[in-house]
Each structure stands twice: as structure tokens, then as C-alpha cells.
């Protein structure tokens, strides 16, 4: 009887072990995201103003605005580039 109980316990622990192993796989760390400071997603466009003329829609100008937003971000990156230095690997 004791042998049977021991065998059953061993099987139960093994089954639980497999379950935990799966959990370990699921929770293994994901690769770190690659940081990028170029071309962030543009801000969501807002509705076109009612006063815009029929030919030039608000979305035309919002498209230009989103490109300018990207350009602003990239220019800030250039500002940072020019403010940095190479360091001295010999010291």
C-alpha cells in the first residue's frame, strides 16, 4: 500500500513538474526592444476644420504636419549628435 502511495505521489509530482516547466517556457524573458529615436509614429490626425476649402482638405495639411513632427524629432536627434563626443578609449 505504501509503495502504491509513493508511486502515485511520484507520478503526481512529475505531472505538476511538466506543468511548471511549461510555465517557465512561457515566462522566459522576451528580447529587449531595440530603441530607436527616429521616425516615431505620428500623432493621430484630428478632424479637418470645417472652414477648410473644398480643394485643400484638413487632412492634406495634417499629413504635412505629421511629416514636420517627424522632422522635429529627427532634428532633436541631430542636436544630440552634435553635442556628444567620442571619448578617449586609451584613458
Amino acid at each position, binding site marked *: 500500500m505504501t509503495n502504491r502511495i509513493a508511486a502515485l505521489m511520484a507520478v503526481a509530482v512529475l505531472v505538476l513538474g511538466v506543468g511548471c516547466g511549461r510555465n517557465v517556457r512561457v515566462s522566459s524573458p522576451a528580447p529587449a526592444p531595440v530603441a530607436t529615436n527616429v521616425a516615431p509614429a505620428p500623432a493621430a490626425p484630428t478632424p479637418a476644420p470645417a472652414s477648410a476649402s473644398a480643394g485643400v482638405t484638413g487632412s492634406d495639411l495634417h499629413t504635412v504636419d505629421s511629416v514636420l513632427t517627424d522632422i522635429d524629432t529627427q532634428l532633436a536627434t*541631430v542636436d544630440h549628435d552634435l553635442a556628444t563626443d567620442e571619448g578617449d578609449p586609451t584613458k
Partner: protein
Amino acid sequence: MKKFIAGAVVAGTLLITPGMALADTSTTITPSTSTPAATPRHEFAAKTKAIAAIDKRLAWLDVLTGHVNNAKNLSADHKATLLDKISADRLGLTALRAQIVADDDGPTFRQHAQEIVTDYRVYLLLTPQVHMTIVADAMDAAYAKLDAVADKLAAEGKDVTELRAKIDDAKAHADPVPGHVLPLVPHGYPDNKPVLLQAHTDLQTARADLKAAVAIARSLAK
């Protein structure tokens, strides 16, 4: 009872072992710091620092590659030129790293360590070259969209002279930037730094022109 405990121990071992193996998924890349056994401690530290400086630049080159590949408005020519420059630097720095690992005398090591900076200028030259070219080409996209807006406004009978003048001003400042910055070479630094600074100023001016053009277009569209 003893058998029960023995069974539990066996099962527990089976449980824990694969868990440990799965948990060990991270791979830590450490810089190779193989140096001759006789290398003095201070030289060993200097070599380790130089190798770390190269590894940092190699990692940054990967980031720059991502910036180039993800830039939405970069022209095919500029993209190819920038990727070539990045690839050449990656090859050169990788070769230099191997030389530094093998260096066994001080003067040669110090010369190689200086070359990390003087032969590549990854941060001070290549990085602005990449980002300024991306900005200049993004401005090309902005001109195209503003030109289309100007065409529509002109078709409605609006006077777009001022709008087109602003677009032309922006083009005049930003279009030459890639042609000015891409030919710059590391050995020309810092003498060629004024070219970078002028390019930066030109891009800022072009950006202000574009902003003014958008304001004009918006007022004409009312």
C-alpha cells in the same frame, strides 16, 4: 515511508532539472579580453576598455542600421550610401578589435586604440551623417505634400506665390545637405566639423521655412 521519500526526491529532481535548464535562456556576451599572461594589470585594463569602446560602437552601428532601414522617406541612393558606410565601419572596427586583442606591446596597442576614434568617428561624424540625411530626405517628402497643397490652392484661384517661395527656400537650404555631409571622412575631423554645423543650421532654417509654408497654406485654405 522511505520509499515514498525516495520517490518524491527522484520526482523532484526530474522536475527541477528541466526548469533550471529552461531558466538559463539568457546569453551574456562578454567582450573577449584574452591577453598574454605577462600583460601588466594597467595594460590589461586599458585593453579591456578599448575593446569595450569598440563593442559599444559596433552595437551603435546596429542601431544606426535600424534608423536607416526604418526611415520612411530616405532615397534609395542615400540609403545605399549610408548602409555602405555603416558596413565599412563595422568591418573595420571588427578587424581592429582582433588586432587589439592580439596586441602585445604598448605602443602598438595605443596606436590601435586611437584608431577607434580617428579612423571611424562613429559618434561625431557617421551618426550626424545618418541623421542629417534622413532629415533632409524627410523634408523632400514635406515639399512634395506642400507642392500638392499649393497646386490645389492655385486651382481655386488663391495666390500661392508666398507659399511657393517658402517651399523653395526650404528646398534651397535642405536639398544640398546630403551632398555636403556624406563625403566627409573621419580623418578630416575636426576640420570638417564646420560643414556639419552649417548643415545643421541649414536644416533648422529649412524646417522654419516649412513651418511658415504650412501656416500660409492653412490661412489660404480658410
